[in-house]
């Protein structure tokens, strides 16, 4: 998938009118939903969280009137809410996985093994992301969603020249945690 360019509109400097908010919403809502879907594994929950984030933003005149980079705020709040959801979903997922194993034993579903293994790997990755520093988890998710460094920088509220450093550190930390959990035989 080719990286889809975000609008070049400098949201941090444009006058914050109703049109500005609509443009921000149109440009970033699909991205935020995509990021949250990958993070939570639940498109419905992702849409719900994304809608909540933008509604919260719409109700915060102080934020809209201030100088803070709202794009960074949106991604920060959305990914934090997504990570919270991952932690909250952990218990539910364990029950679902137990039910999946039971179905697998009963041979009720064709191809259930692949599906189960994939879901277990995804749950493991989510758990590792949820245990990392939020910014590290964010940069990994954003990069794995094919966002360019300039877009990641905008979302994280950092300089584009810092993204490489943040990404390299986050990847190192993720690998360390992954190996801790699964050993070197991966």
């Amino acid at each position, binding site marked *: 998938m080719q990286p889809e360019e975000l609008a070049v509109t400098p949201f941090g400097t444009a006058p914050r009118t109703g049109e500005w*908010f609509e443009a921000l*919403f*149109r440009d970033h809502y*699909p991205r935020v939903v995509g*990021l949250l879907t990958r993070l939570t594994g639940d*498109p419905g929950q992702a849409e719900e969280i994304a809608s909540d984030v933008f509604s919260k933003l719409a109700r915060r005149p102080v934020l*809209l009137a201030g100088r803070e980079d709202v794009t960074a705020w949106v991604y920060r709040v959305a990914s934090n809410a997504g990570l919270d959801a991952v932690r909250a979903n952990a218990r539910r997922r364990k029950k679902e996985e137990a039910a999946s194993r039971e179905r697998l034993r009963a041979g009720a579903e064709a191809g259930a093994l692949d599906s189960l293994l994939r879901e277990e790997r995804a749950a493991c990755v989510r758990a590792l992301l949820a245990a990392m520093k939020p910014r590290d988890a964010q940069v990994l998710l954003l990069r794995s969603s094919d966002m360019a460094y300039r877009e990641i920088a905008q979302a994280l509220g950092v300089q584009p020249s810092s993204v*490489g450093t943040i990404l390299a550190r986050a990847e190192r930390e993720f690998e360390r945690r992954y190996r801790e959990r699964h050993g070197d035989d991966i």
Partner: protein
Amino acid sequence: MSRCWPEGELRAYLDRELTARDMDWVAEHVKRCEPCRLVCEELAGRADRVAAWLEVLPEPPTPVKIPAIPRSVGQARRWLAVGGLAAALAATLVMAPWRPRAGSEPVEVKSAPVTKAKVTPDPPLPDGRGSEASIPSRDRKGAVAVHRAAPPQPAPRVEYYVALDDEPIEAGVVVRVGFGGGQVPADVIFGPDGRARAIRLVSDILGEQ
């Protein structure tokens, strides 16, 4: 040999996220610098592994359906302003029959003595809004009950009542004014913030009783 590059720049180089000039410089440097080449290989290997691990996360549905845009504060204010303007326009239309005709005396508005009054809010309309500019029926007589300290007089009959905004009136000041040289009385109800909240025409002086 040119200077060695920090890890962050090398990571950006692997993603081709440096400027064209820096890409050339790093490429040239890595060819000749063994430590930087090893760092690049390590970074590239790790990036590939992490990308593969993260690939198990499901892709979002495409295209993502965009819901209705949450109304921002600015928009809400704008709609409130538009609503106020519409209410004021409606009030103007309702008052139009009492405007002086051409050639008649200019309108003189006389203020009656200001009386601090407690205003009971208008009972809600069936649709629950209660703020539309509307012409009340006889049943809405006394829609805004005013308790004045003035000596008891026959209660004026309210013919027209126009709310100028959506907010309920809990307390305010009623100012009696007269249009057309004082012949057409009306009450203007001001809220605690000094804004005019409603206008009503009182017809007992019009001889319509």
